[in-house]
């Protein structure tokens, strides 16, 4: 089966900085890939290479079967790009922006107008269609930006941090737009620093860090890589914590941790499947600890990143700015 995106061994160094250090990427046609990583991980560089804006030092990339390096112009007619800025002409109206791209793509006047109307409707911009984009809200600009990327029905749509800088309401609106694109069968490559966003939108996720892929899979597969479910137990009194730890030991599949900043809450990895919670409660009762709360939870992507890199995503941001 032909993939919408196939890249292997992409390397791009900027002086000492290894923006890409041998990145492999495969995106099946019709799926949404979340490219997840902290600031400076190489997400944008990867998008720029795949969209012909940047030539890699080495490696190969194919979009819809077309070689990005050998035939960039043919690749450009198969992609749509929405970069980190909402790249719209501020002094033109939404409709004019769309028709401008249509003209570049050689749609005749009639097709241009029809396509613009269709996309304005689809992205809820009909009322604002004839206002200059300068007066659009952040969310409207992004929607116009994506609409402009879709004029030619691209085989792959690249969205580089599409919700960065949006207020929470606009962000949810943008998520709905992207979910609809996914449901329509558009192949989307989405970069994000937000774990929640990748979790919600992507069919599969590639985690990158320092220019290489450090994990990939579905959200659930990724969560499994750090050892399935975790149980979290709170007891009434700190003096019983040692006893509680011993009571839980037979059930845990790894180390039992005291929750940071707490003297009464323990968490531990457990094997997936039922029966653990009643056993845990019984064991804790038997040892005399009063159970206040028991919770079983699947790990978050934050946990995944921590277990893969030994760093939290937020810490990495600080490193970058330091």
């Amino acid at each position, binding site marked *: 089966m032909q993939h919408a995106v196939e890249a292997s061994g992409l390397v791009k160094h900027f002086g000492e900085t290894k923006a890409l250090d041998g990145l492999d990427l495969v995106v099946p046609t019709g799926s949404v890939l979340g490219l997840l990583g902290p600031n400076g991980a190489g997400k944008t560089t990867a998008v*720029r290479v795949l*969209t*012909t*804006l*940047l*030539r890699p030092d080495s490696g190969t990339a194919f979009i819809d079967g077309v070689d990005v390096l050998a*035939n960039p*112009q*043919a690749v*450009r*007619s198969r*992609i749509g*790009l929405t*970069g*980190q*800025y*909402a*790249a*719209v*002409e*501020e*002094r*033109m109206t939404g409709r*004019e922006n769309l028709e*401008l*791209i249509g*003209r*570049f*793509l*050689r*749609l005749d006047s009639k*097709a241009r107008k*029809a*396509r613009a109307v*269709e996309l304005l409707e*689809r992205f809820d911009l009909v009322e604002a269609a004839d206002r*200059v984009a300068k007066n659009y809200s952040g969310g409207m600009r992004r929607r116009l930006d994506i609409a*402009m990327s879709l*004029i*030619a*029905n691209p085989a792959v749509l690249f969205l580089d941090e599409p919700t960065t800088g949006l207020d929470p309401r606009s962000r949810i609106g943008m998520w709905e737009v992207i979910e*609809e694109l996914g449901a*329509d069968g558009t192949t989307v490559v989405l970069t994000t620093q937000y774990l929640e966003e990748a979790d919600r939108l992507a069919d599969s996720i590639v985690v990158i860090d320092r220019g290489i892929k450090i994990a990939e899979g579905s959200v659930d597969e990724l969560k499994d890589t750090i050892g399935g479910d975790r149980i979290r137990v709170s007891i009434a009194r700190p003096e019983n914590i040692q006893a509680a730890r011993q009571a839980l030991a037979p059930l845990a599949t790894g180390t039992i941790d005291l929750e940071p900043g707490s003297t009464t809450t323990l968490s531990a990895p457990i094997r997936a499947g039922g029966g653990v919670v009643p056993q845990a409660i019984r064991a804790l009762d038997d040892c005399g600890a009063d159970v206040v709360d028991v919770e079983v939870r699947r790990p978050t992507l934050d946990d995944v990143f921590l277990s893969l890199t030994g760093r939290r995503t937020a810490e990495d941001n600080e490193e970058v700015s330091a």
Partner: protein
Amino acid sequence: MSDTKISTPQRSGKTSIVDAWRDASTEATRHLRIIPRNPELLGFSLVQPIMFVLLFVYVFGGAIEVAGFDNYNQFLIPGIFAQTVVFGSSFTAVGLAEDLSKGLVDRLRSLPIARSAVLVGRTFSDLARNAITFIVMLLVAFLIGFRFEGSLVAALGGTVLMLAFSYSFSWIQAWIGLSVGSVEAANAASFIWMFPVTFLSSAFVDPATMPDWLEPVADHNPFTRLANAARALYNGIDPGNELWWSIGWIIAITVVFSTLAIRKFSRSAA
């Protein structure tokens, strides 16, 4: 949520000259269309040339005499025209830097259009903007007594020559606009060097009055050739070789800097 299938003509491989021209004119239309929507910018781009004409004429006009010219204004005004029209090229650098910073250049670079389109479109629309400025400036000059001493055809030739020279400088500015990192830097970088280029010339005074070491610099300045040729054409004097020198410089600057700028554009936009 049904998508009408739009068959985009596949634009793969090399773009032809015709394609490149259509792409460039699409891009030029974008700029031309928004000129009237930015009245402040249009206003300021007209104020400066008018101000220059009036300031130079009324401040220096009475103090300076140039051999061969009864009226200094007939000598000076073509020089001011030349300077103003060349200053006008800075729009290219600033506009490009602005599009770069807003991500618009990336959007255009990711489209299957000719690599030259963005820059050719931009330089041509800036040429049109400069032509508008030029007309306003001419009107002001006429109001304060400037006259074409030669034929109308010669005067038209002088005007076209100056606009063409400004066009060639737009390519230097395009290269600058792509090279500097920000709009602010483009503002400064596009302007500063044009002061020595335009003042160390024959635009305002006869270079023979300059210090000995400076005179040859002014004599060989391409801008001197332009000022001399335009002045001659406006005053009914035979421009002689100055005309050919000017045309030569226009071609040379355009070829060299359009090559540099387009190469920079297609390789990377930092």
